[in-house]
């Protein structure tokens, strides 16, 4: 049985970081984007456009505060309209960031290092956009603090058995921990910026933010431990967030919502749309800032694979929903799935199937996975598909009430759209500001990938 062993040489899939970089060159390159690069015309135009789009959120919110939620398209059977659709969509988009930074850190996947900072920032901004909707949909956003358990003059406490309250806990925990994780990751890079900058005000600003980080080995030891712990905590957290979001639906008894597959299926959908959004943003940023040597083909390939895998799980969910619609033997469930497929919102359903089930199948091809343009288009289709999914879940399940007399249709109003598009403006504005003022790539983790950071001790142990 024994035979001479010849191991084949490694198959090159593409490196995590292209050759020719040194500790200093990596640091200077990324820090230079923040410190030296001139504010470009394109960036200003982009920021201005995003900021203009953001104004539609301002207008819509003002309208909402003055007039109340009646300006939205919600009605009696469809009490949950755009607000929850967009909330779930944004929260889902946020998931990729935590997944990339936390789970891949735990799995020792070194390809995460180039993209995690950006993805984490995206998480934060997406969760902020998501948070807008529950706060706005109360119609009295200035009373949003009522959602928190605190002693008050009304002697009232939130209903701890309600999934909507779990949402409050889950989303605020998610936002807090993501921000902490993001900031902790930034500390060494802020120190790099502090030490690289030549301008006094930048030194003071980055110095204050870096908290006096001095790259001490004693600090690194605790830092690495804390990073791992945070990653370990963030991983179940990110799963729990969309699980809780799915409970918002599944814990109720509406046909099409009350189904046990929802938690894993929502989590997969969240990661799916999140990776879609990372690709949508990363491909232009990579091109624009000339980061092809740091965000390599391997990154795109891997992200496309994750997109494909989660897309398959989501498709599995659709398939099971349809199958169990029949298998449950429940007439409401049966009607629900038939109504989805053939009812007034059927075009949305089939569009969703096209976007989420059919389109990702192209990703089986490596050619497509490594073609940034096609990948970018697919990622946008995925984003649209996931939005449609939430729309279909929310609206088709609600618009056919148990009581046929209250059957009705839901169409968003101009203010619904303005709110939704406005949050995209908010998101893009934040992204533009972020890429300008902070290092978009974790410098110290990139350094770890370089041969200069490897220990080849000259002395034998």
């Amino acid at each position, binding site marked *: 049985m024994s035979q001479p062993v010849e191991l084949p040489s490694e198959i090159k899939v593409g490196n995590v970081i292209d050759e020719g970089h040194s*500790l*200093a060159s990596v*640091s*200077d390159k990324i820090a230079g984007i923040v410190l030296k690069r001139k504010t470009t015309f394109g960036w200003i135009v982009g920021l201005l456009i995003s900021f203009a789009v953001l104004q539609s959120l301002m207008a819509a919110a003002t309208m909402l505060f003055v007039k109340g939620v009646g300006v939205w398209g919600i009605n009696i059977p469809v009490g949950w309209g755009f607000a929850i659709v967009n909330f779930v969509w944004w929260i889902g988009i946020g998931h990729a960031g935590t997944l990339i930074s936390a789970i891949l850190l735990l799995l020792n996947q070194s390809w995460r290092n180039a993209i995690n900072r950006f993805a984490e920032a995206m998480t934060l901004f997406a969760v902020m956009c998501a948070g807008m909707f529950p706060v706005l949909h109360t119609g009295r956003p200035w009373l949003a603090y009522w959602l928190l358990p605190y002693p008050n003059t009304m*002697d*009232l*406490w*939130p*209903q*701890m*058995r309600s999934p909507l309250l*779990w949402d409050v*806990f889950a989303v*605020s*925990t998610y936002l*807090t*921990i993501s921000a*902490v*994780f993001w*900031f*902790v990751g930034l500390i060494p890079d802020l120190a*790099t910026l*502090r*030490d*690289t900058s030549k301008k006094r005000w930048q030194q003071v600003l980055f110095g204050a933010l870096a*908290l*006096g*980080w*001095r*790259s*001490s*080995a*004693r*600090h*690194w*030891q*605790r*830092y*690495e*431990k*804390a990073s791992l*712990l*945070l990653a370990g*905590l*963030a991983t*179940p*957290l990110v799963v*729990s967030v969309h699980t*809780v979001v799915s*409970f918002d639906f599944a814990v109720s008894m509406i046909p099409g919502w009350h189904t046990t597959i929802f938690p894993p299926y929502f989590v997969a959908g969240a990661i799916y749309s999140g990776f879609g959004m990372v690709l949508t943003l990363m491909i232009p940023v990579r091109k624009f800032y000339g980061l092809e040597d740091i965000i390599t083909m391997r990154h795109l390939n891997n992200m496309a694979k994750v997109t494909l895998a989660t897309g398959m799980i989501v498709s599995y969910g659709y398939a099971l929903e349809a199958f169990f619609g029949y298998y449950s033997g429940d007439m409401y469930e049966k009607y629900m799935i038939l109504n989805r497929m053939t009812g007034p919102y059927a075009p949305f359903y089939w569009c969703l199937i096209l976007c989420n089930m059919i389109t990702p199948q192209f990703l089986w091809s490596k050619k497509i996975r490594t073609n940034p343009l096609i990948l970018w288009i697919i990622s946008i289709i995925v984003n649209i598909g996931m939005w449609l999914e939430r729309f279909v879940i929310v609206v088709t399940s609600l618009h056919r009430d148990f009581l046929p007399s209250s059957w009705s249709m839901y169409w968003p109003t101009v203010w619904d759209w303005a709110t939704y598009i406005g949050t995209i403006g908010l998101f893009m504005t934040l992204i533009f500001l972020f890429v300008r003022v902070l290092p978009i790539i974790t410098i*110290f983790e990139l*350094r*770890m990938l370089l041969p*200069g*950071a*490897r*220990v080849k*001790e*000259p*002395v034998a142990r």
Partner: protein
Amino acid sequence: MSSHSTLDVHPLYGIMAEFATAGELVAAARKTHEAGFRKFDAYTPVPLHELDDAMDLHDNRVSLFTLIGAILGGSGGFTLASWISAKALPLNIGGRPLISIPMFIPVTFECTILIAGLTAAISMIMLNGLPLPYHPVFNVERFGAASKSKFFLCIETDDPKFDHAATVKFLESLNPEEVAEVAR
């Protein structure tokens, strides 16, 4: 012993050596530790796990605090949920039990993560003595490279074994690129 006079004239924080590679730094740190120095620190642009062994750094308090935070957060979350549901605002919803343990798990879980995560970050920063607006090592002009590409080792004057001339000599024997005095 002779260096004490130097100290008086020139308040000194320590002596710093600069190294070009991670390997040299780890070797130097190991030797320094073996030489009996304890009050010294290595500065590196990337975390080097080898240093933990070389310098005998095994501080697990961050994990401990995080565990405590997790336990407190979890029990606090569960207590909060059950106290509210059963005591502070008992609402009968369709005859369901007031204490409904499965329904409290999400809140319990989120509180666990929240408190544990905050403890992890805060205890790391606090144990590292941050935020710290001033530290003598930054007085060395080239030290800025510690956050980019160079590796440093600094033996502090507080160390009982510290002796100015001997320490300089010892550091020079480690094959550094440069040795510098660190003003306090």
